[in-house]
């Protein structure tokens, strides 16, 4: 229970989070906060530990040490479904849709009223008007209403990415984490994605965005955390972080400069 006279806890607080894989320390003592309303970008070269970090926060991997607090509540060692229920939703670098189910069904699965009570969900057979109406909001938000009855596996790349975002939003999360949403997109699709994320922002308390694409990070992030070798190399506004000499050396140098 939050103490009444304290200020509101951050949406996400990551403290000294670490993950050890055999000999490798993939994430090595990462700490940062995400405040309400913020989009925080996480950048870093390949292998810096960005995706492992997302997997730790969302509960896909158990953390070796450190902690994750969501809106003041410790969720570090909760099982995957409990973390989802508390309000962390995510997308995946390698898109993970329920490919043999329809676009509409992919969003409907995230409907918490049923996901939390599967046995009771049996008795909601029939037209499911209210469920579909709820899902419709997210499909329309991501411009997928016209695709609702198609199989998710048949969607083109950009739409598949948007469906993952719609599905994540349909859990009504506090925190949305996007793992390289622009990967494999052309410039036009990336520009659309910027609009999609801005619309998604209104539906959640905060967003964490992992991305390689610097234009996307600059267009969307309020703050940036730069990682390398599993550690935070620099953190601050996008301009500050991109001007950091370590960041320039480790990350931008590799890509041929900004």
């Amino acid at each position, binding site marked *: 229970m939050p103490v009444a006279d304290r200020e509101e806890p951050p949406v996400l607080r990551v403290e000294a989070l670490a993950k050890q894989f055999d000999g490798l320390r993939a994430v090595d003592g990462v700490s940062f906060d995400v405040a309400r309303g913020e989009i925080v970008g996480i950048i870093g070269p390949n292998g810096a530990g960005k995706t492992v970090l997302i997997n730790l926060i*969302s*509960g*896909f991997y158990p953390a070796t040490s450190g902690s994750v607090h969501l809106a003041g509540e410790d969720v570090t060692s909760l*099982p*995957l*479904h409990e*973390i*989802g*229920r508390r309000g962390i*939703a*995510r997308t*995946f670098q390698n898109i*993970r849709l*329920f*490919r*043999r*189910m*329809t676009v*509409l*069904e992919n969003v*409907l*699965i*995230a*409907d*918490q009223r*049923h*996901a*939390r009570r*599967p*046995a009771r*969900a*049996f*008795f*909601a*057979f*029939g*037209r*499911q*008007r209210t*469920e*579909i*109406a709820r899902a*419709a909001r997210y499909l329309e938000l991501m411009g997928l*209403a016209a695709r*609702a*009855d198609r199989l998710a596996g048949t969607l083109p790349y950009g739409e598949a990415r948007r469906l993952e975002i719609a*599905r994540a939003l349909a*859990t009504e999360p506090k925190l949305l984490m996007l793992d390289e949403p622009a990967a494999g997109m052309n410039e036009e699709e990336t520009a659309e994605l910027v609009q999609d994320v801005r619309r998604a922002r209104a539906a959640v308390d905060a967003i964490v965005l992992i991305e390689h694409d610097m234009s996307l990070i600059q267009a969307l992030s309020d703050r940036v955390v730069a990682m390398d070798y599993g550690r935070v190399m620099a953190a601050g506004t996008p301009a500050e972080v991109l001007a950091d000499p370590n960041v320039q050396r480790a990350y931008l140098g590799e890509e041929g400069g900004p």
Partner: protein
Amino acid sequence: MIQDYLFFTGINILLAWSVYVVLLTGNLSFAQGAFMAIGCYAAGIMTTRYGVPLAVAVPAAMLLSSAAAVLVGFPALRVRGIYLILVTVGVTFCVRIALENVAYTGGVEGLKGMSGTRLWHLGAAIAAVGLLLFLLSRSPLQRILDAVREDDRVAASLGVNLTYVKLLAFGAGAAIAGLAGALYGHYLIFVRPDNFDILVSIFVVLYVILGGVNNMWGPLLGATVMTLLPEFIRALQDWRPTMFGVAIVVMLLLRPEGLLKFRQPSARWSGHAGR
């Protein structure tokens, strides 16, 4: 004679559905013959020794099968894929060996004196289970189960408790197998542990794979065709296992998702009136 054919077809349809329900969450169970045995013996002991009416013994036997499945499933469903299959095979052997060696269940001699199953009882059971499966296919639970089969970790991250959902399906499948077993025993009058050999469990899984795993009609068709075909084509009778083997190989090559491979979406947008 013809009545017997219909009866065994009906039993196999129930068993195929019991495999199908478990398979909805992506788990292949070779233990359905064992849960059938538990249902059969539980109902048989209740009616023959304690004078319980069949109408009470059947649901009680279903509950017992289901409870046994939950007990086994709780630790077992944590392991995945091939390991879970091995666990279910192990369950089938254990149940058979137990039935053979416990005096209370009649040992290798088996259990006798059960009677009372009429063909229409079985018909009603199939209709009831079929109706439930049909309603399931139009319910939010169907897509939760399907999502668990497609990608269980992602389903979990959306708030689905995997252990609970998998146990629910495993328990429901065992209840259907227990129903089949209870009706089976009271039709045959006399059952022995070797009526519930591992081959029973294996054949039932094959019916489902042949018929199709994506909808409730596939198992129904698979069980019907594979039970009746060898009965009507006399020449095939001695070759039954061979025929099965050939059918499986041919199907997996030509139509790996079974005869009826369509999947009905659990909800549709078209027809949704909008805002």
